[in-house]
């Protein structure tokens, strides 16, 4: 059977004229569906209800309230409106309503200190005896059956005394009603506890239940209970009065329940500060203050409880401050301060109501786990809304979502071959294809990538233990690598392979995400996104194993997207810090590898200030934020300013291996320039001239600097190294892609694809084919390989033992030789952040001289002694015949052995170690670079050490102590806090602002105020 939209599919079952059903059996089966429920026995009559409508400055919404009251199916016995000194048109509207018969009486009460006082004023002057009192706010719109349902519940066998109806958020067209409150309780911290999920839809899913209290809006109370309790407490004039009343009622033995079948829309104008009134200056602060009073008044030790509440408020204040909610923080702080000044109010409350009830029925106060579950739900909901917003979906639930199905068009049909999916597939295939040779045993290395540390502890040590003789902390990217290794199951090797190999894949996907925001989810965005990782590959980022290049490949699209958003963002948006802080965070992480990106923050901040022609405080985040992340590393950068221009491990790279061939670079340059020209031409009519000029200058300057800068040499810790061109080159590519995407982002009105789009797609695909083709075909010749160490295992074992010795490696090569000094920790990540030989050019010369003596067969008699003083236990020579074998054999203190592979190893006799211990004299010497941060312990006790006069080595006395001797560079105490400070500050600014529970829902903004 099918049903068309608008038709009742069950009509045949009700329509007697529709013909008989196929048999009588189904009718009998479904008969219950047509039976009217038995009406409950009614004892409570609306005639016994006195309704009091309190009005104050409500002209903007009062007509809706009056309209709703007029539409009640059962009218209260008497409906009295009391105006509390409104200066707007409220009073006149009440008089008019009285004239129309909507109201029975209008009372002019003049200014009143609170809601309770206004009600008391009415009750004092109203004649007649009513069993029930129904309290109404001027921003309340009862549904027609509201009073009837309240009375139905009031007539139940349990004889409730106080009923709290279901309060709904203001109604929105085409949206289901959302629950605002159905009674409430209070947490131990004094916050209202609603027991509802954020944005929970009203589906009549709630049953009546006992409750602590609730809002006075729509509260129905037995008059005798009201009188017994003395009405609402005047110490709680505006908020929490209903909660307090319910709490006292519960304490007195009255039955307090919810009545979820009675529904009223509540605008909560007072709570959200929309009422133009002098009564409530700061609703949030007032609510907190009154909450504290209420908690104190109901505590066994009111003074102590008040002090506790104030302390909690101060804590929340600090939390809100961190959560970028200064108004909420101010409210909490103000409430705590006011509560301290007005302690007497609590005493007066106690004098009026007597001491608090000893016990409450179980379940009226929420358990801690319920409170935490509620908070967790709020966070999850906020995250979900944020995600849906990012995807462009409406985070609100619409009626279509609730009632739609596949046939009602509620869902869009999803295509399998979307551009995004095809992009991902291409990237995955290209990545795995080009990395097919990188799945072996060994360690990944390349010209700019040192092998990964052997274990996680070494990875962290590479960051946390400063390099002797160098200022400040080690480079920040080492911390990121250690963190990534931790996340990769404690396997540095796994992480670095993922990072280097998957960087183009991740970069492509992130670029696509950014481009999709501008261009939409089409083929153009996918093609341009494909050009990004391909360009990175062509620029040699992957082949050289550059960690800073990999980071730039991943994060630069994010930074570019944020920069575009920030330039487009108005200064007066709700949270102006988020985007610039996120941009600063992205640039900061990039700067941890390539400090130049911190400079980029300054340039971007200045550029925006110039284009807007005014200073904007969040711009400081972009300009200075990245430097925050560099704080621990700054002393080193000051010591070696050349590092500002290089990438990670700059002193490791040798030559230009891994760089793209000239023809390939020329192809990339030509294709990119054509894309840029396309962007300039297409952007002419629709791109602001300043933006266009800025991007063109960005492309040209970055490209030129990126091409020429690597031709130069800069010193880094005594080594002459080439500045890195990667940041500039990648920035140039990013600028081109931004330019093209902004230039081609107009909405297409015709199904015919514009020629400019086709050209951009074609150029991008050419770059992609070139880049990924090179990566896949030339994978085996790439310098990025998984390699085994050439050092014999017995040498490695000694290096990794407690002797911690070093090994001098010499490779003979056609009359010349290359050499390196290795240890258990080197070469590894960070080795190239200082001079690779004992962090000192002078010490490097010493080792070079020793290597030369081996290479040329002219050993000095003190060769072994010199090796031992440097902690070198082995000399490993590979790649050729040993010259001066006899002389080397006669060198004192050395013992040689030659392997079948032709590797000759000289072992320095005497179990050489970095630590030389003279047990008889009780002294020791450490073959380490002198530094004041060395911590040497003997048997766990720290002993002082002095630097050797020779400039290398430390010596000290064991001081008669015994036990293991350990030594390490002390981590500066400020390093981790300083690093975290930058990250946390920017992350807090980037995070969405914290919202107080019950804060104004976004949907209220769309709610009409006046009745139509």
């Amino acid at each position, binding site marked *: 059977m099918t049903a068309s939209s608008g038709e009742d599919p069950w009509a045949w079952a009700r329509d007697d004229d529709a013909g008989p059903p196929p048999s009588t059996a189904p009718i009998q089966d479904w008969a219950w569906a047509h039976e009217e429920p038995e009406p409950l026995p009614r004892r409570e009559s609306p005639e016994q209800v006195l309704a009091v409508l309190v009005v104050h400055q409500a002209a903007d919404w009062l007509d809706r309230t009056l309209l709703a009251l007029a539409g009640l199916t059962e009218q209260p016995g008497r409906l009295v409106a009391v105006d509390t000194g409104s200066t707007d048109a409220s009073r006149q509207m009440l008089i008019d309503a009285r004239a129309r018969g909507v109201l029975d009486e209008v009372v002019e009460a003049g200014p009143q200190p609170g809601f309770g006082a206004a009600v008391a004023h009415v009750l004092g002057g109203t004649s007649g005896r009513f069993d029930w009192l129904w309290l109404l706010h001027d921003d309340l719109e009862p549904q027609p059956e509201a009073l009837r349902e309240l009375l139905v519940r009031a007539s139940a066998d349990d004889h409730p005394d106080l009923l709290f109806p279901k309060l709904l958020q203001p109604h929105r067209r085409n949206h289901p009603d959302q629950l605002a409150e159905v009674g409430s309780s209070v947490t131990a911290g004094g916050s209202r506890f609603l027991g509802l999920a954020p944005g929970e839809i009203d589906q009549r899913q709630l049953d009546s239940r006992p409750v602590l209290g609730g809002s006075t809006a729509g509260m129905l109370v037995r008059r005798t209970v009201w009188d017994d309790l003395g009405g609402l407490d005047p110490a709680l004039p505006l908020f929490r009065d209903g909660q307090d009343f319910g709490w006292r009622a519960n304490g007195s033995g009255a039955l307090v329940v919810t009545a979820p079948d009675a529904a009223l829309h509540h605008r909560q104008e007072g709570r959200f500060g929309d009422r133009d009134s002098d009564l409530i200056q700061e609703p949030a602060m007032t609510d907190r203050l009154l909450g504290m009073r209420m908690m104190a008044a109901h505590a066994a030790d009111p003074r102590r409880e008040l002090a506790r509440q104030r302390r909690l408020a101060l804590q929340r204040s600090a939390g809100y401050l961190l959560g970028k909610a200064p108004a909420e923080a101010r409210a909490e702080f103000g409430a705590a301060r006011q509560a301290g000044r007005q302690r007497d109010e609590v005493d007066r409350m106690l004098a009026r109501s007597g001491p608090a009830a000893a016990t409450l029925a179980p379940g009226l106060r929420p358990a801690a786990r319920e409170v935490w579950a509620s908070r967790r739900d709020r966070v999850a909901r906020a995250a979900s809304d944020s995600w849906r917003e990012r995807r462009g979906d409406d985070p609100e639930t619409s009626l279509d979502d609730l009632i739609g199905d596949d046939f009602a068009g509620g869902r869009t049909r999803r295509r399998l071959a979307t551009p995004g999916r095809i992009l991902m597939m291409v990237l995955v295939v290209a990545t795995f294809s080009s990395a097919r040779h990188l799945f072996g045993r060994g360690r990944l290395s390349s010209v700019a990538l040192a092998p990964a540390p052997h274990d996680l502890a070494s990875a962290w040590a590479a960051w946390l233990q400063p390099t002797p003789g160098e200022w400040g902390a080690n480079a920040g990217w080492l911390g990121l690598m250690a963190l990534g290794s931790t996340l990769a199951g404690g396997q540095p090797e796994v992480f670095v392979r993922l990072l280097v190999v998957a960087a183009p894949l991740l970069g492509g996907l992130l670029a696509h995400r950014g481009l999709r925001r501008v261009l939409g989810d089409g083929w153009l965005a996918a093609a341009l996104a494909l050009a990004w990782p391909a360009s990175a590959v062509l620029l040699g980022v992957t082949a050289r194993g550059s960690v800073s290049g990999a980071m730039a490949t991943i994060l630069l699209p994010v930074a570019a997207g944020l920069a575009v958003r920030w330039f487009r963002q108005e200064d007066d948006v709700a949270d102006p810090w988020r985007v610039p802080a996120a941009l600063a965070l992205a640039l900061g992480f990039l700067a941890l590898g390539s400090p130049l990106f911190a400079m980029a923050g300054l340039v971007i901040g200045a550029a925006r200030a110039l284009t807007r022609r005014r200073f904007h405080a969040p711009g400081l985040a972009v300009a200075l934020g990245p430097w925050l992340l560099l704080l621990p590393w700054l002393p080193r950068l000051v010591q070696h300013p050349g590092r500002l221009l290089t990438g990670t491990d700059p002193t490791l790279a040798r030559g230009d291996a891994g760089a793209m061939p000239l023809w390939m670079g020329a192809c990339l340059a030509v294709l990119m320039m054509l894309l840029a020209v396309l962007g300039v031409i297409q952007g002419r009519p629709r791109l602001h*001239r300043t933006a266009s000029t800025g991007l063109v200058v960005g492309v*040209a300057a970055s490209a030129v600097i990126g091409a020429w800068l690597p031709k130069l040499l800069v010193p880094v810790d005594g080594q002459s190294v080439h500045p890195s061109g990667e940041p500039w080159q990648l920035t140039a590519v990013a600028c081109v892609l931004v330019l093209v995407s902004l230039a081609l982002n107009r909405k297409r009105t015709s199904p015919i694809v514009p020629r400019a789009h086709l050209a951009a797609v074609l150029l991008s695909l050419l770059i992609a084919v070139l880049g990924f083709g090179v990566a896949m075909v030339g994978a085996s010749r790439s310098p990025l390989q998984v390699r*085994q160490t050439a050092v014999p295992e017995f040498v490695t074992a000694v290096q990794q033992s407690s002797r911690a010795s070093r090994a001098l490696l010499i490779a003979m090569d056609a009359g010349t030789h290359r050499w390196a000094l290795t240890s258990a920790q080197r070469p590894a990540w960070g080795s190239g952040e200082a001079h690779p030989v004992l962090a000192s050019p002078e010490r490097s010369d010493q080792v070079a001289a020793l290597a030369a003596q081996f290479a040329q067969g002219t050993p000095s008699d003190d060769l072994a002694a010199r090796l031992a003083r440097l902690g070198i236990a082995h000399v490993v020579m590979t790649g050729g015949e040993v010259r001066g074998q006899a002389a080397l054999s006669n060198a*004192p203190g050395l013992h040689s052995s030659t392997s079948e592979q032709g590797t000759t190893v000289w072992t320095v006799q005497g179990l050489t170690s970095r630590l030389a211990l003279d047990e008889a004299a009780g002294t020791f010497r450490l073959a380490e670079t002198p530094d004041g941060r060395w911590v040497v312990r003997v048997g766990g006790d720290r002993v002082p050490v002095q630097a050797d006069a020779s400039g290398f080595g430390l010596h000290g006395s064991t001081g008669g102590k015994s036990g293991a001797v350990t030594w390490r560079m002390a981590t500066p105490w400020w390093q981790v806090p300083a690093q975290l400070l930058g990250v946390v500050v920017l992350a807090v600014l980037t995070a969405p602002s914290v919202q107080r529970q019950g804060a104004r829902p976004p949907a209220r903004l769309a709610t009409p105020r006046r009745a139509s």
Partner: protein
Amino acid sequence: MRASSLVAPLTTLVVAGATLVAAGFVRPAQPVERPVAMVPPVRSLSCAFPGALGTVFTTQAEAVAVTTPSGAAVEDPFGTERVTGPVLLTRTGEGHFAAAVLSKAGDAMSWTECGAPATRGTVMLPIATDTELLLVNTDQVDAVVSITLHGPSGRITSAGLEGVVVPRRQSVRVPISVHVPTATAVAATFVATQGRVRASANLTRGGREQMAPSQARNTLAFAGVPASTKVRLVLFNPGRETVDVVVSALGVRGRFTAEGGEVSIDPGVTVELDLTDPLNGESVGLLVEGSGPIAGAVDVTAGADRVWLAPQDPGTELRDVVPEGQLQLVNTGESLAQVTVEDTRRASTRHQVPAGGTATVAVPAGVVRITSDKPIAAGVLVTGKGLASTRVRAVQNTTRPEPGMLDPQLGQT
């Protein structure tokens, strides 16, 4: 916006593109080779001489420390007869470094070369019964030495030659007659499994000669073979294959093959060649050419005197300390050699030495420097109350090694 507004951005892009292309043709700057401050090398020479008093001669008196094996510095080490036992000469720096000790035993004088300790080597013992092997350890660690003797029948097995411990800064004498009771020539090879020693053979009876250790080579040259009554050439084949040897005499008559000078030496065998008759009492030079590495020595008897000669490598530049005597230049080549001799008085003389011939020059005690356009060998004959001869060794410069290239990524295969 007009079309002219495109000119500036497009021009910028074109200029940038052109600059990019230009950059592709420019080679990156290369690091300037920074002069590496190489550490000065240290060389030590051990001098163990017969007799009680000695005078040290060295080619470099500067930057040389002279100490006893126990490490005590010798006062005024280069004064006459200032050393009373074995000494260690340690020089820090580059350049030529050679030394010798002139010692007296009664009326007899002895000229003893100093040499570097080694972990292995060969010492020729022309007459086993009258010889002891002297092992001097001037290092800071004990040396453990294994000695192998090779006689006319090959390896001589004897107890007590394995694992000879030479304590640090001490010496050990090994009497060869205990192991080889016959008056034959033997070769002693030594290998230090720990540490190193300066090994030499001392004549214990019939003179105060000392034989320096030598390395096996395909060609051995001897200069300064004195006119004598008996000349014996002792040769040892340390290899694993038979070596064919040709012995040539080089004298005023030119080069000629000595009668009986063509022999084959089995592996591990030491042979003696009596050259008395072929040389006919002339002072000549000898050239031994083998088909494989051989070690050798010359034992000369002139009356009651005995002279031992160690082989040398012919070279174009010889520099050594020598005693006062007659310098014999031996041209081992096939063409005339132009030779310049500069003695310690800086007196320079030029000489022509015919191919396969010899020339004689008087030199004072001290440093002598010989340069030649052809490889030559040289020795100094001392004639006085007795007979002595010493060789002039090739220059052994401690050169400044060229630094290699630092490659921090080395070690990854």
